[in-house]
């Protein structure tokens, strides 16, 4: 699959979580569209050489801002769109790699060196945490900036 077409899978990913969060039916397609926009924007940014943390932050800011505008037009609460649309950027692989490396580390026999696993786990945890932080701050920021006005 082409890497640009893969971004379209963000739509069903956001849709499932929108259902889980009991989003109103008329908000579902908006959440799916915003999810694809966010994911594509991050791919484009990373293609130009920006790293995944900053790319996630910028894409999340875009999702949060668009969600706020869309929420006003549709008379729905902004988190309905923003949170569902942010879900497809969750760093699942890094989180999995961290758990996997920690398991390997804890399964070592006494005396064996676990340095490689420790480095793997550490860098995966930091990468996952940074991406999650960028994502949550990016989603939360626009509503705080725009609510005051």
């Amino acid at each position: 699959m082409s890497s640009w077409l893969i971004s379209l899978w963000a739509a069903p990913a956001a849709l499932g979580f929108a259902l889980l969060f009991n989003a109103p039916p008329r908000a579902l397609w908006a959440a799916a569209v915003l999810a694809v926009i966010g994911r594509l924007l991050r791919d484009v940014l990373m293609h130009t050489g920006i790293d995944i943390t900053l790319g996630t932050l910028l894409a999340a800011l875009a999702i949060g801002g668009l969600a706020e505008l869309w929420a006003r037009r549709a008379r729905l609460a902004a988190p309905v769109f923003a949170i569902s649309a942010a879900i497809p950027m969750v760093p699942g692989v890094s989180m999995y790699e961290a758990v996997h490396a920690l398991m390997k580390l804890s399964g070592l026999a006494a005396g064996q060196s676990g340095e490689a696993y420790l480095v793997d786990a550490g860098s995966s945890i930091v990468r996952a945490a940074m991406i999650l932080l960028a994502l949550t701050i990016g989603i939360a920021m626009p509503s705080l900036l725009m609510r005051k006005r």
Partner: protein
Amino acid sequence: MDVRLPHPPPDPARIAKLALDAAVLVHQSGGDTARTTATLDRAARALGAGRVDAIVSSLSLGVTVSVDGRQETALRRAPHMGVNFRVLSGVSRAVNALEAGRVGANGFATLLDDLESYPHYYPAWLVAVFVGFACGAFAALFHGDLMAVAVTSVGAALGMRVRQLLAQRHFKPFVFAPAAAFVATLVVGLLKSLTGTPEAALAASVLFLIPGVPLINGAADLLSGSYLNALVRLTMGAVFVVGLALGMSVALRIVA
């Protein structure tokens, strides 16, 4: 003979009750602290309060309402519950209608009652199927092949069903998160020979347990200055993630 005032002054006890009803709904369906506080404040003022002092902690809400020198303080326990965007949007619309004068106090109370009694659009099995497919889509986003999508969808849907059944029985997150993660990882692990990208399938299979709303609201609370509530939400998220990792690692020891 009783003398009727043309406009009876609003009763602070009723204002406090209605404002708390609205704020509890927001607080328990995924609103952040700023949204809950704003709901309390706006609803009470629209109902005629002169001065409103609201307190929103993670487990309880309180408000003091003053009208013409009369004062009422009310507290309500409100532990965190699931996310429900229908209720969140509904309360937001009800408060807007109240402020615009389209509904009065009685109409507002009816709107809130309606939101409480019909909270779910989608049947639980449908949610489980779509959440399973969403995790399948994650497998594709992690560069998995189509069989990885199929395997992950099955495993995650079953895990989601376990989570729903345990949550219905009021088990705490630290019970249902490991159980659901265990089931999802076990199913995907047993079927992993069908796919060429088992790592993507395994990584995606437990993502239905990611506490997205507590994490995002925790960040929102940090940014808006509600530090204590932010820490509570982030801790809730961390408990979820630790439970998820626990269930997943036990299952991986069996199948990997």
